[in-house]
């Protein structure tokens, strides 16, 4: 578009002005300049652009009316250039003030810096830069509260959420107490939560956390977005973008960058543009005035006149603290002279930067925190050029990314000096070198660089070590890596090398080894230095070595212990670490680490590191030389024992690990024990309690049986249900005849009454009946929760709200980001939740129930203990014919019969669970999978599809596990556990049931008790019930739930070998603020009275829901046979404590651990 065309469009009332301006962005730069010169301040032009370039207050800061996005870098750049050129004088003035402001800030003259900021505000208006720096200055001058107050003050006047978002981030970024990594994470989380487009996220990184992102590319987008910002911000971003484009060589060949940069240099007096011009021209076209003085200091350093450096640099820094390059020379001079750090006395900020650099260059113990602090400074002062120079220095010391070279280039361009280090890397070629030499004719620093980059044949006289260092650089730069290896191998053993030079030697030698394929040497160099001082490898690039290793057969490198150590140090994934571990063990010809012979023959630090950090379960579990998880744990314990001998200084660590692994193993065993069979019938209790009843009936039965065998006596069968059945079934008269004969035989009737009474006790006794165990161990939440937990852990199901509706599945709705598809998905997931819950309820409420011929409430019940008249008659006949004389024989036969029936039922249940029920789950899961495929949700969320498929496989296994519960178990147990392990086992089972609401109680076991026999599983059951109560009734979410569990023992009688005392278990948890404490207190008092009443029976033992206290009472009084126990509740300030007291008999065991036991 030409000027005339634009003019015509502008003044033609019928023309579409928006189209006119959008087309204008496609104009060539020269035309744009003409049009801008003529009309930039024209009211229609201003109206269309829609924002003030120099807003006078924060309210006017952003009025979004961005002109069309061209998606063309050169179009957006031209537009920005044309806009900025309208304000070149303003911008040049601003650049001067900015420099002055940054200098005063570093000097600690915050008042002076504030005055400049005020002046910038008056002259240039509000800008994002000004807001950012106002907040930063408040933080440093007046503290974080003033930073927050200022943010609040700004927020009152700013309506744009976009600007508010920026401000809030700038305020946080300025906060001294928010670390580099925390800000980075906060920033990443926000980006994830907002679900912002990746290109916008990239832009935000560019603005807020430059080093958080690699591969900036969408510069046209950044420039377009900033169209809405004041002119100062647009200019600063434009230069940042140009630097980035130049560094990353993403320039479009059709764009003449030289011309653009040259033009810009004609308009703006900006040292960064001058450096860009030097870079584009590949020689020093612009000499930065500050370079001469700085170069003389570089020369002092090159001439090893370190003392003079220490005298000169503080003076220069005090004069002009923006020359960050001097900071490095200063700290390196201190290190060369082996001096501790000393401040330059300018400001706290400058001294802290210097001291941190000193820590990093000397790789002392403060290295890590210094690196983090420096990164924080670079992040907070993101808009200051000196911080960008500092980033380049730091990047080369910490291998910030694979893009280190670009960070270094970034620091050269953002610097106010012509750095001779840019020779070779950025100013390439003899012309570039000669321009340096011409500009700084007497500089030894330049000649040394020239020597290193092969432009000079010799260097001025320096000491021997330095000469070899420079020679090494020369060989390295000339890619004579074999020769460089020889040079560096000689150097590395020189004890006089200071840390910075030693690090350089290690770095270059390492690269030489990699480039010449000497991989074992590279690995050794890496790991030996890591083990000596892990900071020494901070600047080594591990990826190149890994690539080279991958190209070879790793087994060929297995001879060195460094191989597995290397992969562990670089944080390779477990399998890759295993391959290295396996290669090393294969080379040694052993299968397990504990088989390694002659441990003394290895470097001690290396073998300790290998055993301690590499030979861990998560790596060893890939080895085929182990048979199970238990086998791996046992190996790990043996490794810890070896480490106790090798590394006694850290024995506590190894003892702790042994204890932890052992406890984990015990917990797993306990869980297995609890899960291996949940069906118990206390036959002994049944026999003993029924004996007296049966005794009398049995002798009457014997008399009647003997008499009725030969006499045709008739009696009334009172079991009406059976009678009813008989009467309704007349088809088979012979059968009926038999039945009637038996049914009217008084002996038979007596037998039947006895049999059915025992049968009913067997299944329904409140104290020891089967249904009580089914209720406590299976139906009381356990089965349903187990099944649910599997789907919950995969985030496939949700729970119902108070109104009975399934709540939204936020896990997936946060990921799908499409309202329409989310609605469909949520419907599918709700149906899925409902169908699964219905199926689980059906299993529990209908199938895992008991029924008899009298008790028919649950017609589908699988525990079917109905006995037909035939079956009863057959038993009766057997007993009568066998002529039992003792009622005990009779009882034995009946209970055996009932146990046999139970075994049949359990076989059937296992079969049903693993077949029919499994098919029902499979059908429900397939329906869900199909429903998400209908709208291609599976393609949008492949992880959802994976979760659904995984649930299908997992449910098969889970049903196998659940089926295993349906086995009869003995009333005894082989477990021997301490109280802490018992509690932890219950916590682990609970957490597996509530995978998304895990709790982490504080456990204080103050007893030395080891428990055995039934105490272990039964106390696990009790803890499970109490933990369930805490989760269900506290009203707290898992993340806010604080639980403390403690155990105490009255040990006043401990001196006796066997003594009775009280074990006290206490469970304390916080409560939701909405809890009615008074009501709760009353309710708990009532429960306590009932629990503590010895006369109270277990009326509701076979029913689920409620507090489960009756089940605890039954466990204590019946299963554990405890005759003295009690419970107490203490309701406090939104907390409740449950105290359970159990009288126990302790047996003192005089072994080495002096443990006591209950059994």
């Amino acid at each position, binding site marked *: 578009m030409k000027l005339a065309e634009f003019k015509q469009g502008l003044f033609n009332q019928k023309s579409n002005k928006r189209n006119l301006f959008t087309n204008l962005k496609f104009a060539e730069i020269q035309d744009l300049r003409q049009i801008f010169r003529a009309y930039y301040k024209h009211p229609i032009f201003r109206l269309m652009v829609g924002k003030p370039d120099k807003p006078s207050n924060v309210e006017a800061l952003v009025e979004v009316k961005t002109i069309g996005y061209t998606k063309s870098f050169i179009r957006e750049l031209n537009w920005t250039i044309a806009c900025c050129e309208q304000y070149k004088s303003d911008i040049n003035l601003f650049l001067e003030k900015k420099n002055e402001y940054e200098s005063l800030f570093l000097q600690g003259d915050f008042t002076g810096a504030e005055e400049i900021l005020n002046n910038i505000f008056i002259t240039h208006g509000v800008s994002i830069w000004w807001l950012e720096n106002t907040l930063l200055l408040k933080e440093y001058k007046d503290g974080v509260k003033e930073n927050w107050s200022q943010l609040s003050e700004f927020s009152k006047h700013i309506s744009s959420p976009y600007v508010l978002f920026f401000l809030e981030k700038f305020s946080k970024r300025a906060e001294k107490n928010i670390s580099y990594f925390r800000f980075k994470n906060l920033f990443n989380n926000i980006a994830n939560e907002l679900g912002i487009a990746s290109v916008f996220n990239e832009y935000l990184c560019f603005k807020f956390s430059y080093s958080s992102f690699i591969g900036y590319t969408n510069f046209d987008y950044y420039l377009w977005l900033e169209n809405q910002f004041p002119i100062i911000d647009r200019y600063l971003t434009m230069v940042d973008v140009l630097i980035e484009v130049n560094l990353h060589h993403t320039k479009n060949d059709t764009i003449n960058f030289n011309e653009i940069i040259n033009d810009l240099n004609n308009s703006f007096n900006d040292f960064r543009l001058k450096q860009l011009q030097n870079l584009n021209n590949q020689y020093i076209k612009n000499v930065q005035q500050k370079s001469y003085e700085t170069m003389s200091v570089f020369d002092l350093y090159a001439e090893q006149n370190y003392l003079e450096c220490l005298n000169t640099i503080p003076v220069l820094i005090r004069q002009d603290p923006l020359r960050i390059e001097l900071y490095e020379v200063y700290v390196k001079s201190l290190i060369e002279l082996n001096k501790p750090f000393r401040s330059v006395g300018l400001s706290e900020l400058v001294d802290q930067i210097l001291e941190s650099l000193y820590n990093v260059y000397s790789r002392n113990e403060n290295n890590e925190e210094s690196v983090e602090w420096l990164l924080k400074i670079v992040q907070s002062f993101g808009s200051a050029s000196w911080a960008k120079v500092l980033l380049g220095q730091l990047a080369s010391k910490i291998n910030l990314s694979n893009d280190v070279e670009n960070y270094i280039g970034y620091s050269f361009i953002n610097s106010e000096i012509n750095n001779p280090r840019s020779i070779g890397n950025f100013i390439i070629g003899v012309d570039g070198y000669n321009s340096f030499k011409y500009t700084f004719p007497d500089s030894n620093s330049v000649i040394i660089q020239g020597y290193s980059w092969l432009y000079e044949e010799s260097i001025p006289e320096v000491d021997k070590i330095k000469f070899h260092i420079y020679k090494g650089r020369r060989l390295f730069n000339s890619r004579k890596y074999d020769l460089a290896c020889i040079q560096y191998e000689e150097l590395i053993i020189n004890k006089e090398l200071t840390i910075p030079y030693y690090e350089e030697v290690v770095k270059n030698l390492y690269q030489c080894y990699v480039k010449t394929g000497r991989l074992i040497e590279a690995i050794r160099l890496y790991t030996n230095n890591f083990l000596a001082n892990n900071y020494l490898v901070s600047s080594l690039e591990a990826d190149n070595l890994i690539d080279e290793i991958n190209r070879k057969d790793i087994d060929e490198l297995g001879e060195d212990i460094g191989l597995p150590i290397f992969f562990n140090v670089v944080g390779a994934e477990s399998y890759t670490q295993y391959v290295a571990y396996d290669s090393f063990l294969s080379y040694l010809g052993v299968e397990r680490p504990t088989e390694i012979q002659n441990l003394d023959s290895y470097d001690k630090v290396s073998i300790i590191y290998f055993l301690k950090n590499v030979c861990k379960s998560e790596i060893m579990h890939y080895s*085929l030389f182990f048979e199970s998880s238990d086998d791996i744990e046992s190996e790990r314990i043996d490794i810890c024992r070896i480490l106790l001998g090798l590394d006694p200084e850290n024995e506590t660590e190894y003892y702790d690990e042994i204890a932890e692994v052992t406890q984990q193993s015990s917990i797993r065993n306990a869980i297995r024990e609890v899960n*291996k069979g949940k069906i118990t019938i206390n036959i002994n209790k049944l026999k003993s309690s029924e004996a007296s009843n049966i005794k009398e009936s049995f002798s009457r039965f014997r008399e009647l049986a003997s008499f009725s065998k030969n006499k045709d006596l008739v009696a009334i069968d009172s079991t009406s249900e059976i009678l009813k059945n008989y009467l309704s079934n007349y088809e088979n008269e012979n059968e009926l005849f038999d039945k009637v004969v038996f049914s009217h035989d008084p002996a038979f009737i007596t037998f039947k009454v006895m049999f059915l009474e025992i049968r009913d006790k067997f299944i329904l006794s409140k104290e020891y009946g089967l249904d009580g165990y089914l209720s406590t161990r299976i139906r009381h939440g356990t089965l349903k929760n187990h099944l649910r937990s599997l789907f919950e852990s995969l985030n496939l199901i949700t729970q119902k709200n108070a109104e009975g509706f399934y709540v939204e599945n936020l896990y997936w709705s946060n990921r799908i980001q499409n309202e329409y598809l989310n609605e469909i998905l949520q419907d599918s997931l709700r149906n899925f939740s409902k169908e699964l819950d219905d199926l689980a309820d059906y299993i529990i409420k209908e199938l895992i129930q008991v029924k008899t011929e009298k008790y028919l409430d649950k017609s589908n019940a699988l525990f079917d203990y109905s006995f037909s008249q035939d079956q009863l008659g057959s038993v009766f006949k057997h007993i009568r014919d066998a002529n039992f004389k003792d009622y005990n024989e009779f009882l034995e036969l009946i209970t055996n019969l009932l146990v046999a029936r139970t075994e049949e039922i359990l076989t059937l249940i296992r079969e049903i669970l693993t077949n029919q029920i499994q098919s029902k789950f499979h059908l429900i899961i397939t329906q869900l999978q199909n429903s998400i495929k209908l709208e291609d949700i*599976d393609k949008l969320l492949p*992880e959802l599809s994976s979760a659904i498929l995984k649930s299908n496989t997992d449910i*098969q296994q889970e049903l196998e596990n659940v089926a295993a519960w349906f086995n009869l178990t003995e009333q005894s147990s082989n477990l021997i556990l301490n109280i802490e392990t018992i509690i932890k086992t219950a916590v682990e089972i609970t957490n597996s049931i509530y995978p998304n609401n895990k709790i982490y109680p504080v456990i204080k076991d103050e007893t030395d008790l080891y428990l055995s026999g039934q105490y272990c599983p039964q106390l696990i059951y009790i803890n499970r019930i109490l933990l369930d109560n805490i989760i269900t009734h506290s009203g707290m979410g898992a993340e806010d739930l604080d639980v403390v569990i403690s155990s105490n023992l009255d040990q006043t009688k401990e001196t006796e070998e066997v003594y009775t005392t009280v074990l006290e278990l206490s469970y304390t948890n916080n409560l939701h603020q909405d809890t009615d404490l008074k009501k709760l207190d009353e309710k708990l008092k009532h429960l306590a009275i009932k629990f503590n009443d010895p006369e109270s029976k277990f009326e509701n033992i076979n029913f689920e829901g409620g507090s489960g206290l009756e089940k605890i009472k039954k466990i204590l009084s019946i299963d554990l046979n405890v005759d003295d126990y009690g419970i107490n509740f203490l309701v406090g300030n939104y907390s409740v404590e449950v105290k359970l007291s159990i009288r126990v008999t302790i047996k003192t065991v005089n072994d080495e651990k002096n443990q006591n036991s209950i059994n």
Partner: protein
Amino acid sequence: MRKIRILLIEDDKKKSDDIINFINARFPHFDVSLKESYHSGLKSLFKEKYDLLLLDMSMPTWDRSPFENGGEYEKFGGIKILKELNRKKKILPTILITMFDNFGESDNSITLSQMNLVLNNDYDSFYLGSVFYRSDISKWQEDLETLISSLRND
């Protein structure tokens, strides 16, 4: 005629039943052995002699039992098995048979066909291809038959 020995490494019972039933019906002279974990699968591969491996992608580390919970669930256990075979130079024609047509997570996912390309590239000497299994659609049977037939033709 010598029986063709196949090892199926698969922990999903329904899927393994379907595959075994299909092979038994379609290739009666094939003998299919089943292993259900990374460990038992690899051990069997190194101990026994097979003609073909049918490999699932995700599996537990150990065979599950009342005494073993299966250990870590290896999402890419199939690839680790391929790597181990390659590393130990155990060349065995292999078909990946999976229920997943997409692996990984939204922004970082890889489709089955992309995965197939990667595996073809990395293990071209013994990797035959992949089959997408669905319990409700029988197309996987045709695909599996085609791949098995290609092996037999070779």
